[in-house]
Each structure stands twice: as C-alpha cells, then as structure tokens.
C-alpha cells in the first residue's frame, strides 16, 4: 500500500512539477531576508523574483542590503546594478519636555494613530512628536526608540535600513528619509510646525518660526521656507553649517560634527526664552470616551 502510494505520488509529482528559475532561490539567499517590505514587494522572495524576471532592474532597490547587496545580485544575474544613495530616517521634532510644556494629559489609548485622530496632543503644538511610539512598533530592526527623557522618537542611524516603515506609521508626518552622510553627519530642521511664528514660539521653544534667516545665509539654495517652516533639501545641502548658527530657536540640528565657531559680533541672544508660557488655565485631562 505504502509502496503503491509512493509510486503514484512520484508520477503525480513528475506530472505537476512546477518549473522555477533556480536563480530565484540563489538571489533570495543574497538578499538580507528581513521581509520588511521596504523595496515595495511583499517580501524578499517576491523581490528576488522581480530581480530575476525583469530585464531592467534599475527601479528595484533593497534599502536594507544597500548598494553592496544590489551589486552582488546584479553581478550574479549579469544585469546593471541599480544605484541609490543611502538614506536614513530622521525624526524632525525637537520639542523635548523642557522646551515644549505639557498643557493637558492624554488618558486615551497610548497610540499615536489614535491620539492624532482625536486631537493635537499633550502640548500646544499641533505638529510635534506624540511619543507613543507607533514608529517603534513599525520598525523591524530596533532602530527607533522613544527616549523617555525627551518624549521624542530617536533613530539609531547605524541600525536604520531606510525601509520607510516608520515614515508610513507616523501620523504627524514628522519622519523623513534623508541623505545619509558618512559618520552619521546631518543638518536638518527639527520642526514641521506650520503655525505662525508667535504661535509656534508659545507652544515650543525649539520650534521653527519661519524667520528665513537660514535661507538667506545658505549659499547652495538648499533651504526653503514654506508655510512658516524651513526645510533643508538634503540633496543640495553641503553641510557648511552656516545656517545652524543663524537659527534663533535652535531648530536646526547638527549631528556628528562640531558647529562652526560663532562670530564674535553675534550677541547670542535668546529671544525664545523670553516668551514663557502664559498663565495656563487648569490642566484639562483629556480622554476620548
């Protein structure tokens, strides 16, 4: 009986054998196997299939494996390797607890998506990081964490693969994939508040007030000010750091480098510090019920 079944199964297996390009298996082995979906496919296997089937693979890119991995697979398949500059997720909010005072307490489910669907957040800023960590849940590489001291999500650039899952998860649209410089150097505006300067200032001492000083000093035309907030194009920026010293609120963040020495004539005034919180009303505890 067993032998008979084995024989039948053998012939059935021969008859319905699925012919598959063996290269797919090989390519899949070369891919990182994270199945993160950062390439736009359902997983590494689907990506491998696409790499094998398509003649032109310039539109395909594995953000986790990066250029090296793509080179390897392209060489194996005898195709031209797609090229893409490495990027890194960047959280653009500097509203730490000391700079962005709490005005209410959120008592609902601690998820950014829910809090954002309901209201603006525990501070007077309607654009800042909520700190409940939807991005942390979305990240498969443990590269993003909410710092309990600042209440803001922070990216570990060495672990970040730029798969973009956190960018999709953030309901406030704070996270951006920016060009990755060597030694994790970066210059970016750590604020996305579209409020008018005075409103931003009142809500958060680290906010961009859209004064435009940085845009004036930039020699590369990398900085634009739109809707009351400055934005540095990471493709145009050359890390000259001039804008960092110009910013009156410290909204422009410099990472992995020392700042330029301050010119002696600059009095280094702190206009933002004068604007303290107005006599706050009662704390209103917030809940959606």
């Amino acid at each position, binding site marked *: 009986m067993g032998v008979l079944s084995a024989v039948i199964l053998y012939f059935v297996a021969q008859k319905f054998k699925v012919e598959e390009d063996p290269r797919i298996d090989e390519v899949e082995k070369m891919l990182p196997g994270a199945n993160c979906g950062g390439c736009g496919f359902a997983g590494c296997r689907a990506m491998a299939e696409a790499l094998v089937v398509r003649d032109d693979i310039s539109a395909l890119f594995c953000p986790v494996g990066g250029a090296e991995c793509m080179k390897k697979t392209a060489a194996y398949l005898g195709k031209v390797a797609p090229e893409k500059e490495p990027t890194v997720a960047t959280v653009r909010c500097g509203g730490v607890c000391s700079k962005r005072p709490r005005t209410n307490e959120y008592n*609902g489910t601690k998820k950014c998506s829910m809090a954002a669907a*309901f209201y603006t957040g525990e501070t007077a800023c309607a654009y800042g990081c909520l700190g409940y960590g939807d991005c942390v849940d979305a990240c498969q590489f443990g590269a993003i964490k909410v710092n309990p001291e600042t209440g803001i999500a922070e990216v570990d650039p060495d672990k970040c693969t730029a798969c973009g899952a956190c960018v999709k998860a953030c309901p406030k649209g704070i996270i951006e994939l920016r060009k990755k410089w060597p030694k994790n150097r970066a210059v970016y505006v750590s604020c996305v508040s579209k409020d008018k300067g005075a409103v931003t200032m009142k809500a958060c001492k680290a906010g961009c007030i859209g004064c435009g000083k940085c845009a004036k000093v930039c020699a590369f035309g990398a900085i634009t000010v739109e809707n009351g907030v400055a934005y540095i194009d990471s493709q145009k920026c050359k890390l000259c750091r001039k804008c960092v010293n110009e910013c009156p609120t410290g909204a422009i963040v410099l990472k992995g480098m020392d700042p330029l020495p301050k010119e002696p004539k600059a009095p280094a005034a702190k206009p933002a510090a004068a604007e303290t919180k107005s006599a706050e009303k009662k704390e209103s*505890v917030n809940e959606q019920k």
Partner: protein
Amino acid sequence: MKTFPIGGVHPSDNKKWSCDKAIEVLALPDVVNIPLGQHIGAPATAKVAKGDKVLTGQLIAEATGFMSANIHSPISGTVTAVDLQPNAQGLRQMMITIKREGDEWMPEIDRSAEIKRECALDSAAIIAKIKDAGVVGMGGATFPTHVKLSIPNGCKAEFLIINGVECEPYLTSDHRTMLERGEELLTGVEILKKALGVEKAIIGVENNKPDAIANLNKIIKEKKFAVVVEPLKVQYPQGGEKQLIAAVTGREVPPPPALPIHVGAVVCNASTAVAVYEAVQKNKPLIERVVTVTGKDVKNTRNLLTRMGTPISTLLAEAGGLPEGDVKVVNGGPMMGRAMVNIDSPVTKGCSGITVFSGADVRRVPTSECIKCAKCVEACPMGLEPYLLQRLAAKQMWEEMEVERIPDCIECGCCQYTCPAGIALLDYVRLGKQTVMGIIRARAAAAAAAKK
C-alpha cells in the same frame, strides 16, 4: 413602552444637576470665533474679509455646494480676522473672528415673541428658507437640514420623527426646549410636515422627562396640533437615528449607504424644529442655541441660550468656574462627547452641552485582559462584535474589519461603557472605522476615475 430591539445600556442619566434650571439668556460675547466647518459636509466659504462691518444675522459664509450650510453672524460688529485658529481639540481650523459693537440686527428678522402659526409657503419655499438660514441638525451630528428634507428620487417620506429623546446623560438642552418652547417646537414640526408632505409626525421622548411629555401633550390638545408624542423606554442610545426609527416605527434601516428615508422616515432633533420655526416664520438664521453647562462639581449648572461663537470659557465662568484639581471638560455628554484641550474654543451649531468631570471621574479605570465575556456584543445596538473589531484594529486588519461591518458602527460607546475589563474598545473601533471609511472612499474615487 417602546424601545429599540437589540443592545443598549442604561447609564445613570445625571440630568438632575441641570434639568430644573430654566433657559437663561447669556450676555452677548465681546468677541466671537465662527468656524467655517461646523456641520457635516464641505466647510462654508467666507463671504467677509478683515475690516468688514456685519450685522447680527448677516450671512458671513456661504454653503459650498449642496452638502454644506450657510453661516451667519451671531453679533454685530467688525470682522477682525479670517484665519486658522485652534478648535476644541486643538486642531487648526478656519474661523471668522468678529468683535462686537452694539447689537444691531438685520432688518428682516422678526424679533417679537409673538408666535406665528400660519405658514402659506409651499414645500420648496420652506426648504429654501431653511437652507438660507443655515439650519443643521442640532443634536450633535450637524447634518444640514435642507439636505435631509430634499427627498431623493424614488423615495417617499411617510413619517416625520422628532428626536426629543436626549438619551445622552447630563444634557438637558432639548428637555428645557420642549418644556419652555413647546409651541414654537410644534409649529416647527407642522412646517417640517408641510415641507415633507407627510401626514404623520411623532415626537419620541424618553420617559425620564414626564414634564416635557405632559407639556407637549397639553399644547397639542389646547392648540390642536396634529402631532403625536411617543414616550419611550429610558435606554441609551435611544436617540440614535436608526434606534429611534426602530423604536417608533418598528422598521429597520438597512446598512449604509442606505438612509432613513429608504424606510420612509425623516428624523429631526427637537431643537432643530425650533430653529426651523424661527427660520421660516421669523426669518431668523441659526445664530444661537441652548447649551447645558453641567457636572457634579459645577457650582451653578445652567441651560444658557448662547450666541454661536461664544468662547466656552465664558459659559464655564457663568456656571461658577471650573472645580478644583484636575478636570476634564467634555464638549457634549459623557458617552459621545469629546474632551477638549482648548476651553476658549467657540460654541458651534452642534454643541448641546458642556460637561465637566472632576475627581475620580477624570481618568479612565485600569484595564485588564479581555476574557471574551461578550458583554460588548450584547450591548452593541448595531449587532456588531466590538471585542473582535478591537483586535482587528489593533492588528491593522482593515479588510477583515470591513467584512465585520465596521461602517455600521454609530460610535455610541455602549461597548466601552459596558466592558468590565475597562478596555478602550471605542478608541480602536473609531480608528478602524476612520481608516476603513477612508479606504472605501478611495476605492469609490478610483472606480469613478476608471469610469471616466
């Protein structure tokens, strides 16, 4: 006594704090903020600019398309800004700011107290007047009333149901309106009947308001109105549109996109009927409404006739200020209201009450694991399975949520109220509904684009 067939809960109604307080007129505010989007549908388009002088009752923003509503100035004065301002949830919204100078009204508005019963207008003219006056549903959903009265082709209205249920705990604005403005309300009902061309009008009132039922019946008898008052069992959410239709007529409204009109019913709130009367008979647009200010520790609970755009902080001050310690100020009642972070935000057309919670009521109860006791399933008036929907939403399984009929959810909060584990079911269900509705809309838009 009639009620809806499935689900429901019975929270303590807490109406005793304010139900004996007669409606008082709140002093005119010095500055008002009028949001352009204070109804369901497209926000209105501003018709005034900074520096313009306006009169009380003057049109300041025009309906943008059919599904929208006009907005009128609640005071006379100068427009000082048309700009983004934080609303009750802190979200930035377009608002018209007006600084008051005196109280000059538009000349065509009849401000006498005399009740005008006769209405010679035909259906189309009545609906046009209601549209001009910017009347929207005042129970909280703020659905434009002229849209509700414009019956789609192939449908026929059989019943007009007036929602005097006010099942939301704490709130008493409809209750006081039925008690103190009964004749205007009933005249409004007759006008609505004429607009719809229906014979039957039923006012559904929960049985915890016997004085309102008696008052309406008395006026109906004395002044010979062809309206029936139907006392209903006290059960939340009796005032939900579909629940009320089921309770009064026994008919079940099919799931969306079907509307109440598909079973021949049109439902209007009791305060809306008064607004309709004022719009049609007195040419008065919707510029004021009754707002209940209540809460266990509120010193001076009130029912205030308030001009739209008045800062809610003014109403709270009028009620004796906020209690000591941490407080939660809710726009609406405890079941469906929304907590506010900005108490300077304005009173809008859908704001029927401000409820203040203090002490232990401020925070949620601690949560524990779901043991699938199915109390939420029993309580759901739409026959959904909230515990399942919660899990699906937590796992972001939107397609499965659609299969589980999430668009049917009326967000009444019965599930969360009844959950012995204190799980935030409604938080998840709301998120799921919002996301799924977005997916459905995107799909419809894509299908429409493909057709072209």
